[in-house]
């Protein structure tokens, strides 16, 4: 009798695991349903908390207004000077592109969204955003913040979507080093840092170099900043190099993100 109870108990514990392994469709359906139920409450909570946070911030900022104003004025002066240089560079760039008959990449259309919840698990890194299929969000859509690449949409409900972050151990992005154009694969490790693997042994990788998405792989468009190289090493098999990358996006403080509607996504939908 005791053994039967034990067997029943064991089976009960393992049932969710079996469902996860053998019926991912059911899991997806269940998750979308539960998220849709939670979404209005999370949205309302997010708005309330944001309001309180804004009030607190404006109260603290009042004491530093004069100092901040002075700093901003100085920054404006510097930026004005830089703007002149950039305008000149832009004109030059356009001229050179025309010369090379460079096909200008179509502009990304973006949908801005707010992060309304984070993942309950301490070992996986997902966030929930307040835009869904009714706003044009689709699965596999790249997501970025003002600082750089954030991740991609993995599941979509009518008014919310779940985004896997780059730091999750299930994330992978084809990337290249901006300065040397060496190609590699940026992988999440479930920690704050990323690892760029499959770098050629002859790659000219250096600490401080910028890593951007390469556009290979069919999900992420080319040229989105990912992070900065902070450490370089040789893989155990001594066939390739790896680089530890500090991401530009601050994943624990994400509040607003941009979902990118890219040509890559359109093409993959057509095929």
């Amino acid at each position, binding site marked *: 009798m005791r053994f039967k109870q034990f067997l029943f108990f064991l089976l009960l*514990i393992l049932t*969710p695991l079996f469902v*996860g392994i053998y019926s991912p469709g059911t*899991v997806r359906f269940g998750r979308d349903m539960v998220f849709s139920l939670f979404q209005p409450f999370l949205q309302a909570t997010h708005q309330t908390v944001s309001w309180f946070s804004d009030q607190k911030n404006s109260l603290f900022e009042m004491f530093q207004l004069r100092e901040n104003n002075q700093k901003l004025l100085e920054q404006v002066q510097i930026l004005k000077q830089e703007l002149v240089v950039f305008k000149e560079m832009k004109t030059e760039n356009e001229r050179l592109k025309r010369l090379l008959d460079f096909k200008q990449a179509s502009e990304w259309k973006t949908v801005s969204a707010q992060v309304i919840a*984070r993942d*309950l698990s301490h*070992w996986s890194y997902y966030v929930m955003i307040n835009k869904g299929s009714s706003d044009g969000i689709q699965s596999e859509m790249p997501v970025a913040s003002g600082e750089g690449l954030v991740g991609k949409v993995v599941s979509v409900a009518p008014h919310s979507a779940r985004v896997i972050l780059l730091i999750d151990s*299930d994330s992978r992005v084809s990337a290249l080093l901006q300065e040397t154009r060496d190609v590699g694969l940026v992988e999440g490790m479930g920690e704050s840092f990323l690892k760029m693997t499959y770098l050629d042994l002859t790659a000219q990788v250096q600490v401080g170099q910028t890593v951007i998405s390469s556009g290979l792989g069919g999900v992420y468009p080319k040229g989105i900043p990912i992070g900065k190289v902070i450490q370089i090493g040789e893989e155990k098999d001594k066939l390739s190099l790896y680089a530890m990358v500090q991401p530009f996006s601050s994943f624990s403080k994400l509040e607003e993100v941009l979902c990118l509607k890219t040509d890559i996504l359109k093409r993959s939908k057509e095929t």
Partner: protein
Amino acid sequence: MSRVNWKILLAMVVVLWFQMGVLSLFSFGTIIFDFSLLYLAFLSFTFEYRRVLIFAFVAGCLKDLLTGAFFGLETVSLICGTLLLRQIIAQFDRRDEWVQGWGTFLFAFFTLLVHAGLLALVQERYVLNVSTWFKSVLIAGGTSVLVIFIFPIFKRLLETQSALKQYELFKAN
């Protein structure tokens, strides 16, 4: 289902909502205190263990549905943690605040490690390393510190009396 069970279930949903929507805004990097673990620990110290196991299963399923990670890991790890806490409670005085504090720490630490271990099994690229242990200690430590403040709130919320064993009724102070 009895009124108390409904209350426990409703409070569990509220705790999960709080964890997802509010608590994550006050994170220290990737370290976030876990109220769902705290709530299950409270249930373990208050109710008879069979009932707690059922609620651990329900909480695990709910968490699995609300996370993006591999389905089923939360359920298994929460039940394993609850079984460990049951052993601790059987050995010590469940009303003692110190027992509640370090019992919650061990429960949270063990549950997190089991989850990380299972994740490493199902996800090839996830590796258990020093930072996993370090992060588990920090989360478990932070969560167990909250016992003093949060357990009375849970107690008030559920309006429950601690389930005492027969021999505990005759215990001296």
